[in-house]
C-alpha cells in the first residue's frame, strides 16, 4: 500500500477529529468530581463517553470508510488561504480599529483577493456594505458595535 496516497486530505481530517477526541478524553480525567449528588455519574462522565465515541467513530472511519482521493478535490489555492488569513485579521482588528474601519478594510482586501473589478467598484461596495450594516445594527437595532480609538 502506498502510504502517501492512502493518507489523503479526508483521512487527515478524520485523524484530526480522532486526536481532538483523544485530547478531550484525557482532559476528562482532570475534571473535579467532588461536588456530585448521590447516584450522579459526575461532570466528567458524559464528556468522557462523547470523547470515546468520537475516537471510536473517527478511528473506525479512518480505516473502514472509502475516502475521496486528493486528485478529485479542488486544491486550496492562494485565494482561499488569503481569505482565511483575512478573516482572522478581521477578527483581530475589530476590537482594535473598531467595526467601521476594520469592516471597510476587510471588504476592500476581500474584493482585491477575488479580483473584484475596478477600484471605484471595490470602494463603493466597501463603503456601502460598511455603512449599511453599521446603520442597521448600530442605529436600527441599537447594538453597540466595537469602536476604534478615533471614536467610530
Amino acid at each position: 500500500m502506498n502510504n502517501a496516497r492512502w493518507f489523503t486530505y479526508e483521512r487527515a481530517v478524520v485523524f484530526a477529529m480522532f486526536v481532538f477526541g483523544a485530547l478531550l478524553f484525557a482532559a476528562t480525567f482532570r475534571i473535579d468530581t467532588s461536588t456530585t449528588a448521590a447516584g450522579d455519574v459526575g461532570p466528567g462522565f458524559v464528556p468522557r463517553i462523547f470523547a470515546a465515541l468520537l475516537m471510536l467513530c473517527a478511528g473506525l472511519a479512518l480505516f473502514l470508510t472509502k475516502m475521496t482521493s486528493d486528485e478529485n478535490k479542488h486544491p486550496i489555492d492562494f485565494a482561499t488561504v488569503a481569505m482565511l488569513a483575512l478573516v482572522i485579521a478581521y477578527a483581530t482588528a475589530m476590537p482594535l480599529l473598531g467595526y467601521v474601519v476594520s469592516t471597510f478594510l476587510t471588504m476592500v482586501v476581500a474584493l482585491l483577493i477575488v479580483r473584484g473589478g475596478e477600484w471605484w467598484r471595490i470602494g463603493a461596495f466597501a463603503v456601502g456594505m460598511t455603512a449599511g450594516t453599521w446603520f442597521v445594527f448600530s442605529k436600527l437595532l441599537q447594538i453597540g458595535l466595537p469602536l476604534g480609538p478615533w471614536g467610530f
Partner: protein
Amino acid sequence: MLDGLIGGFHHILSLHYLWIILIGSAIGIAAGATPGMSTAGTLAILIPFTFTMDAIGSLALLASVYTGAQYGGSISATLLNTPGAPESAVITFDGYPLAQQGKAGKALTALILAGLVGGLVGTIVLIGAVVPLAKEALRFGPAEMFALAVFGISVVGGLVQGGLLRGLAAAALGLLVTMIGQDPVSGTARFTLGSTSLLGGVPFVPALIGLFALSEVFSLVARRDQHVELKNVTTKHEWPADRAELGMWLKFMLIGAGVGIFVAVHPGSGATIASLIAYSVARQVSKNHKLFGKGAIEGIITPEAADKATVGAAMIPMLGLGIPGSASSAVLMGAFTLHGIEPGPMIFKNHADIVWSLFAALVIANFAVFALGFGGVPLFARVTLIPRKYLLAAIIALCFVGAYANGTNMISVYTALAFGIVGFLLRRGGVSLAPIVLGLVLGPLLETNLRQAMIISGGSWLYLVQSPIALLLYGLGLASILVPYVMQRRKMAIPHPAMPLPGPPLPPLPEGIPEDGE
C-alpha cells in the same frame, strides 16, 4: 386545536406581520436562487436581524425565509442548470432540459404550484401531528428523553453524506462541544482552559453562523467563480393544457408531498434526501419514465412538492420532541432559544400562542411565495447573476456583525470564526456539518436527562431500559444505524445523495452545490 389555529391567524393577520412574511419570503426566494447560499446559512445570517423583534415576528420572518428559499433554489436549477441549494439539485435533471426545449414557462408554473401544494400539505400535517406528539412526549421522564436523544443522534449518523461513521463522528464532535462550560448539575467548569468567558458554554448562534455561513465563503472561494448566463429564456407562466394534465400534476404533487413528509419526520433527514426519493418514486410511477432526465414535468413536480413539504414536516420532531428534523430547523431552534422558548413537549403549555402564530405564518408564507413566484421570477432569476465575489464579501461582513450582535462581545465573533474555519476544513474532508448541529442541540438534552435519571434511580443503570417507550426508541435508533449499513453492504438501492438510485443512472449533478443546505 381549531381555536389555537384561529388564534394564530388572529395574531398574524396584521399589516405588521404580513409585511414581515412578504419580505421574508422575498429574501428567501432571492437567497435560495443564489447559488452558494444554503437555506441554513441564510437563516443563520438572518437570526441577528431578528434580535429586537418580538418572538412571533422573528419566527414568522425566519419561517418565511425558510419557505421561500426552498422554492428559490429551483428557479436557478431550471433556468441556469445551477441549483441554489442541494435540495434543488434534482430539479436540474428535468427542469433545465425543459427550459432548453422552450418550456421554461410551464416548468416554472409547475414548480410554483407544486411548491404551494407541497408546502400546504406539509403544514397541515405539521398542525395535525405535532399536538398529539407533544402531548404524548409530555409523559416522557428522564429515561425516555435520554432514549429520544440517543435515537436522534443515531438517525442523523445514518442518513448524512460522507458515510455512517463520519456522520456519527461529526455528531460526537457536536456533542463534545456542548460539554464546554459549566456542567448543568454541579456547575463544575469543563474544558474552559481557565477562561471565564467559556463558563456559559459555546454560544449556539455564532457557532451556526460560522458553520453554515462563514464556511460557505471559503468554499465559494475554493470553488472559484462560475460565470452563468441567463439569455433567451422565457419566464412567462404557462398553465396545464387541460384537466387531464392538471390532474396528473396534482397526482404527482401529492405523491411528492407524501414522500417529503415521510422522510422529513425522521430527525436528521431533510429536503435533499426527500427530493431524491420523490424523484425516484415519480420515475417508477410515471407512464413517461423514459422522458426522465430529458424533460419530464413529473420529474420536477414531485421533488419540488417533496422539498416544500419538508419545511412543515421537519418541524414536527423539532416542536413536538425538541429534535430538529433538518439543519435548517436546527437553525430555527436557535431562533426559538434566543427568545427564551425551548422547542419540545412543553412548548404548547408555555408558548402555545407563539406556536399557533408560527403555523399561521407558515400557511401565509406559502401563499406569499406562490404570489411572488408568479410575479417575480424574472427578477429573482436576475439575482442569480450577482457576482459571487460581492456575495462572499457581503457574507463575511454579515457573519461578523451578526455574531457580534449575538452577545455584544468578541467571544461570539471568535466562535463564529473558529466554527467557520473548522466547518470549511470538515466539508473539504467529506464530513457533513448537519450532524454537528444536531450534536450541539442534543448534547445538553442527553446529559441532563442521563444525570437526572441516575439521581432519581440512585445510580441504577437499569432505570434507563425499564420503560417500553425507551426500549422502542433504542430499538429504532439501532435499526436506523444498522439498516442503512446492511443495505449499503448489499448494494440495495436507497435513494440517498451518496447512494445510487434505482433504475437507469441519473444525469450528473452540476458543480458548485453547497452542502448541508436543507
